[in-house]
């Protein structure tokens, strides 16, 4: 019996902990899913996008008779202007359509409206757009160098934000260290590449004057707030619906200027209007991520214990700042979470965001942590080598072991299993046997390597954590309404907005245990501002912890009410009532009453419970937790083909702890998907610009997410350390896959190539880069 099964047994819960099938899947796998692009519309939009990375718009001329809007038509519409009250943050405005000037290739300059997508594209093709010459800045270092062209007047030196922290006593400890180890880590730019690119459909209702915006988004309520703000309209005149959403990964949690245009057009035309982004637009003009360099140094004592860490983080944030997080999200998260799962007291960090003439950077699953984990885990491996230790031994010496723990950056870690997951991974990877096999293979000219990555994953954080970030918009809490209707059916209306995470299933499992019913009898309703309570949507590995917590609170209130009703109807003491199999039972007797009957009474016989309970069977729960840390150890075993430079992943193994697991199958799926994206980061995916800011990776032939053939079998092992910071005892796990995988894979590549004495500290570690490094070292 696995550790997990034992735990679930001990929990006394019937549904939580079981790998039941996802309730959302029957519709999706039988083609009954409903996506934004399925909606018919009277008008279709094609955005005319800038072919230049920088320059003044000299003229835009539409062919005769065409309907086209530009910034001139949008006078009175406010710019997108996200704000952060932290460090030196400079708010930079983004006009809804480029006004006077363009700042990246792909920026929307005009919107063409026609009766079909084809026609709109034909017209857009015929628009004459003249943009003056200007010198773009593409590279982050070049952008912050003195004398670089200024991209926004509001941000001198092209720095959107510069943060610094340094612990007291840092210099003394640094000076007294035995060994300093350095790594210059770099992650190239990625695009989250959701299967469904962006899409929006806005329809005007003449009867009410309202607009319904159906769009592919992770946060419908915030879209409503943001769009209403920008357009200066009451929120009550706008309904936002997120129907089935084909992946988001953070790319769909930022406000898109395009969606604002659609709502504006629907009101203007008093009609319906739609836009479906194509893949090229998505690759060049949605949001990018990850483009970051970290110069990291670690000071160690003579026993290889880490004493102090010094980091210089430079993020290329692109041309604008994204709403609501701002594009400070990457450098600031790097600063806060750089110390990772290691126990040391001294920390110094400078983190900057550089504005460049490239597509705007926004959150992508893992936000910064894939890169900081990469830097830190490379540092640990390099230190291990410098001390002549196995990489796992240096981690054994330095991982956090006592809880609660406050990191050198001031983050409070709740109880977790950093050391235990490492040991579990070492055991399952059969490290000594691998070392033998590795030595044998080398004799035959084959290069195998093993790489470890241990990390913490901050999840389920509420408004306290966002308050510390200084965001003008401070998300965090969630509200859930659980109700039993008069026929006894149960529904939960939630403010989270799942789009693949399986929340309809997992929240139903939580309710099922509280109310003694089967999960498939419970409907979870989300993604519609008219029917779901205000909430922050789904991002940052938050929904199961926060929405799950709110669900539990609401379900417990409903449970209390049901028990009261049952005790009246069954004439028994409340303490003797148990809820199971859709009924209330008096323990030790055969007296029962069904939930359906109780529900009917709760609505239609309220006089029976006068003074005891409020009429109806609907309760609300709100939850706003401080946050809880999941942890894992990822292990990659790779073979590097030194002739071609290609890396093949032979095995990928994870030992993971995300607290109580509500549904193991869904949890595993989250880890698998994250690892696939991590493989992309480590080996394949790279958005490339030329020196003039032209994107060279504008199709999926050049931008290469892994296919099923590049993702190996993944072996997962779990430990369940129940969270003390989450009332369901669950921790989040949505991002860990892509946080740990890149570091483990690149560490494995470095291990494989250790006989050549070369270092790969850049991702993706493409065959070209690996060969170039081998050649430089004069090896092969």
């Amino acid at each position, binding site marked *: 019996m696995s550790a997990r099964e034992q735990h679930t047994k001990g929990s006394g819960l019937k549904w939580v902990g079981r790998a039941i099938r996802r309730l959302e899947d029957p519709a999706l796998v039988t083609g009954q899913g409903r996506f934004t692009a399925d909606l018919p519309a009277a008008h279709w939009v094609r955005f005319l996008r800038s072919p230049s990375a920088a320059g003044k718009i000299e003229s835009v001329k539409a062919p005769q008779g065409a309907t086209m809007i530009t910034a001139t038509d949008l006078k009175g519409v406010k710019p997108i202007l996200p704000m952060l009250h932290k460090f030196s943050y400079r708010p930079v405005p983004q006009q809804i359509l480029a006004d006077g000037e363009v700042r990246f290739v792909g920026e929307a300059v005009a919107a063409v409206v026609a009766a079909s997508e084809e026609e709109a594209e034909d017209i857009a093709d015929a628009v004459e757009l003249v943009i003056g010459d200007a010198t773009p800045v593409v590279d982050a270092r070049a952008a912050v160098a003195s004398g670089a062209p200024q991209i926004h007047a509001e941000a001198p030196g092209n720095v959107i934000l510069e943060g610094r922290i340094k612990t007291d006593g840092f210099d003394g400890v640094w000076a007294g260290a035995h060994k300093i180890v350095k790594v210059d880590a770099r992650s190239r730019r990625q695009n989250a590449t959701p299967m469904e690119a962006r899409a929006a459909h806005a329809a005007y209702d003449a009867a009410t004057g309202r607009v319904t915006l159906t769009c592919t988004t992770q946060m419908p309520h915030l879209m409503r707030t943001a769009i209403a703000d920008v357009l200066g309209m009451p929120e009550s005149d706008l309904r936002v619906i997120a129907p089935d959403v084909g992946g988001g990964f953070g790319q769909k949690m930022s406000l898109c200027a395009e969606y604002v245009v659609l709502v504006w057009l629907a009101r203007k035309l008093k009609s319906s209007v739609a836009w479906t982004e194509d893949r090229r637009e998505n690759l060049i003009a949605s949001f990018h991520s990850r483009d970051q360099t970290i110069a990291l140094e670690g000071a160690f004592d003579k026993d290889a214990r880490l004493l102090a860490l010094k980091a210089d983080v430079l993020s290329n944030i692109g041309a604008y700042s994204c709403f609501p997080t701002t594009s400070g999200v990457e450098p600031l998260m790097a600063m806060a979470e750089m110390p990772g799962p290691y126990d040391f007291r001294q920390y110094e960090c400078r983190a900057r965001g550089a504005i460049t003439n490239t597509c705007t950077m926004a959150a992508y699953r893992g936000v910064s942590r894939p890169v900081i984990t990469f830097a830190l885990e490379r540092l640990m491996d390099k230190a291990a080598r410098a001390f002549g230790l196995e990489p796992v031994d240096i981690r054994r010496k330095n991982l956090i072991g006592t809880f609660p723990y406050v990191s050198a950056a001031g983050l409070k870690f709740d109880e977790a299993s950093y050391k235990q997951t490492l040991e579990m991974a070492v055991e399952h990877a059969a490290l000594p046997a691998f070392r033998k096999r590795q030595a044998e293979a080398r004799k035959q000219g084959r290069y195998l390597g093993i790489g470890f990555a241990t990390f913490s994953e901050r999840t389920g954080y509420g408004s306290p954590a966002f308050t510390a970030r200084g965001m003008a918009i401070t998300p965090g809490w969630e509200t859930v309404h659980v109700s039993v209707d008069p026929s006894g059916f149960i529904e939960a209306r939630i403010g989270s907005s799942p789009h693949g995470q399986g929340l309809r299933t997992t929240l139903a499992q939580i309710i099922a245990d509280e109310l003694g019913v089967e999960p498939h009898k419970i409907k979870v309703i989300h993604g519609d501002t008219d029917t779901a309570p205000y909430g922050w949507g789904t991002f940052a590995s938050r929904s199961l912890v926060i929405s799950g917590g709110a669900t539990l609170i609401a379900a417990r209130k409903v449970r209390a009410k049901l028990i009261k009703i049952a005790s009246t109807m069954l004439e028994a003491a409340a303490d003797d009532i148990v809820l199971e199999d859709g009924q209330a039972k008096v323990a030790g007797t055969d007296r029962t009453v069904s939930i359906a009957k109780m529900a009917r009474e709760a609505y239609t016989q309220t006089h029976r419970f006068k003074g005891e309970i409020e009429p109806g069977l609907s309760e609300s729960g709100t939850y706003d937790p401080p946050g809880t840390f999941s942890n894992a150890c990822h292990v990659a075993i790779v073979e590097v083909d030194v*002739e071609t430079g290609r890396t093949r992943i032979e095995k990928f193994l994870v030992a993971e702890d995300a607290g109580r697991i509500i549904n193991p199958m869904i949890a595993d799926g989250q880890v698998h998907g994250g690892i696939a994206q991590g493989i992309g980061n480590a080996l394949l995916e790279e958005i490339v610009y030329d020196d003039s800011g032209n994107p060279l990776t504008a199709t999926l032939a050049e931008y290469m997410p892994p296919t099923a053939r590049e993702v190996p079998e993944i072996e997962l092992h779990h430990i369940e350390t129940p969270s003390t910071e989450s009332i369901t005892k669950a921790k989040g796990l949505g991002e860990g896959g892509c946080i740990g995988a890149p570091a483990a894979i690149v560490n494995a590549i470095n291990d494989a190539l250790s006989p050549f004495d070369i270092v790969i500290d850049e991702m993706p570690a493409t065959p070209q880069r690996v060969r170039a490094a081998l050649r430089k070292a004069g090896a092969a």
Partner: protein
Amino acid sequence: MKPAPFIRHVPKTLDEAVKILAQVAPQDGRVLAGGQSLVPIMAFRLAKPAHLVDINEIDGLDRIASDGTTLSIGACVRHGAFHKSVVGNPLGALLTFVARHIAHYPIRMRGTFCGSLAHADPSSEWCLTAATLDATIVARSTRGERPIPAREFFAGIMSTALAEDELLAEVRLPLLSPDTKFGFNEFSRRAGDFAMSAALVTYRLQGGKIAEARVGVGGAEPFPRRIAQAEAALNGQPPGDKAFRAAAEAAANAVEAMEDHQTSAEYRRDLVRAVVRRALEHSNR
């Protein structure tokens, strides 16, 4: 990503097709076969043909026939037709092995052998096959039939000797002598991607020595071709690591490797060396 407007013509016979092609070719008319290259290019509006001559409904163009010396492959024969051997000759096994490396299954069920040749992507496995085996490419127009040797067919990146009014009606591959050995290897970043380098080799053994060696390299230069220096390094040698490495080195030195933003000429030559040697190792199974 919607194509510009075009008119689609659907001829029922080859004669009708070439007649229409002759009319529309001057107005940027093009043949539509499997559409697996043309349609994406049109979706990106990199091509905006005003007319398409769709050859998919012409009877008999999906014919594969052998007359004992050559294998004829009609213009609508899909890549997927070669998933199983089409002829009891080493050529059948060769085509089956090579076909598996082309794109992904759904694309192989639509894309055509002849369309690949007409499209002339430098990385195309079928172009490499045609060049290595010295295929004959049969062009048809209202002016008649014109056989073109593979050596004269490829002219540059996506450029061929076909005139704009000519339809590639079929390709003829010579059957191989029954004792022919073949080997194939390609390198791409992901499974199913266009090869960054590919090699196809064939030879016979005479008294334990390599004879009639053919070494074709694709993906490295604007179009695939046989590499005489590599063939010379093999002929007369016993098959084995020494000869294979010599041939691989000769091929790497002989190619004028293409460069792009991620791939240096030097790296491309590394790949040529690797794929030639591996194709030769594959042949020696």
